[in-house]
């Protein structure tokens, strides 16, 4: 049986680790590669690097960054932020990223998902979604809306519809990021996560809201997620990956502890 996964997300800005609160007011908190290595040694199952500047000029910096990460850590990691083409995805993959995350560019042109999946495989194509709660309407019957550009621009697209569409187009995994919960430390958006996890046949990574170990337990059980993504609770040394995983293990979650 596959284990549940602990995923740590590192927001990267010009090669520096950044932490955002509700997507604004980012501050630098250290060297992302040193942090990544620390989490690797502490047993994280997967890492996500998000390039929050994501400009074209930064693309080469990001490729070099990915190559350096690949020399330092020997578990799967993915890269996201500003991936707009098959070429972007292929270059990052060749630099050593196991998977790539697409978000805004896929909302603007959904064929990008199938193009990337054909080029590097569905198993390496992750669709990340930033989602906020809205009042259900005819256009958005699930009561959740996709927002883009780092969570600031509403799209009028229904969150559940987009998740299912992403799967049909070839995404091999979904990151469900609740921008309402992001940065609050009050727990993941369980209803949203479960609704999507129950509607697709691909793994779901829950994101946004982790503040204590119970939140991870809740989203991996009640929320039906395959993986729980955390950021600030490990970046500021409140918890280590090891303590989070031991907590989950002690509550009966199958998770990797030997390393």
């Amino acid at each position, binding site marked *: 049986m*596959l*284990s549940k996964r602990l995923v740590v997300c590192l927001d990267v800005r010009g090669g520096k680790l950044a932490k955002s609160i509700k997507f604004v007011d980012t501050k630098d908190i250290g060297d992302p590669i040193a942090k990544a290595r620390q989490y690797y040694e502490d047993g994280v199952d997967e890492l996500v690097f998000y390039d929050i500047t994501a400009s074209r000029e930064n693309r080469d910096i990001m490729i070099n960054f990915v190559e350096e990460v*690949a020399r330092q850590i*020997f578990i799967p990691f993915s890269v996201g932020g500003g991936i707009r083409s098959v070429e972007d995805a292929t270059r990052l*993959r*060749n630099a*050593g990223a196991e998977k790539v995350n697409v978000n805004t560019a896929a909302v603007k042109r959904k064929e990008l998902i199938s193009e990337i999946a054909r080029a590097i*495989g569905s*198993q390496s194509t992750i669709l990340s979604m930033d989602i906020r709660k809205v009042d259900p309407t005819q256009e958005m019957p699930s009561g959740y809306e996709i927002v883009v550009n780092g969570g600031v621009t509403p799209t009028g697209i229904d969150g559940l519809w987009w998740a299912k569409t992403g799967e049909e187009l070839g995404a091999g995994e979904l990151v469900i990021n609740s921008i309402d919960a992001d940065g609050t430390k009050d727990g993941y958006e369980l209803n949203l996560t479960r609704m999507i996890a129950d509607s697709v*046949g691909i793994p779901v990574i829950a994101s946004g809201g982790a503040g204590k170990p119970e939140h991870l337990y809740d989203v991996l059980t009640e929320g039906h997620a395959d993986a729980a993504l955390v950021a600030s609770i490990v970046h500021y040394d409140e918890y280590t990956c090891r303590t989070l995983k031991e907590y989950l293990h002690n509550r009966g979650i199958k998770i990797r502890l030997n390393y």
Partner: protein
Amino acid sequence: MITIIDYNAGNIKSVQRACAEVGVQAIVTSDPTTVAKAEKIIFPGVGAAPSAMEYLKKTGLDVALVKAFEGGIPILGICLGAQIILDSSEEGNQKCLGLVAGKTVRFRIRDKLLKIPHMGWNEVKAVQPHPLLDGIQPGDEFYFVHSYYPQPADKKDVYAVSSHGGDFCAALGSRNLFAMQFHPEKSGPLGLQILERFARWNGTLTG
């Protein structure tokens, strides 16, 4: 010195980097004459069996690999490299290298909650001792990404199993060849240890 075979099947640089991490020198080549002179071979690969076999035949790497195997050179297969060493694969009904008797088959799973590809961390259980699995403990997990798995004809060639809707072969071996369906280069310290052991392995069951 380890020779890593590059046959246009996925990113093999990750295997070279993992070797470097544990202080093992490795070169990457797609040249059959270099493979013919190799002291030790890693045969990695991600992708589909038909295109991989086509490339191996076109370059003559298929012949070089068979000769290396017959010559007693220690060989480590990884992922696709653990599949196309069998007689054939269900993927495109492809005839393969035939270094080990058996067939590569696709997961057939009734349980809708179990997904294909089988992707993520899963426990690998040794079913018989092998120098490359020396020290593997209950609960040790490794990283998998695959939809097909190797099924040796003779159970004595199966060295480890994992489970995804039932047990499947996670590692197989025959003489100087050992192969694993999971990715040691992406399985953290436990995976790197396997590469380290391979660097020391003399190609026999006792050492």
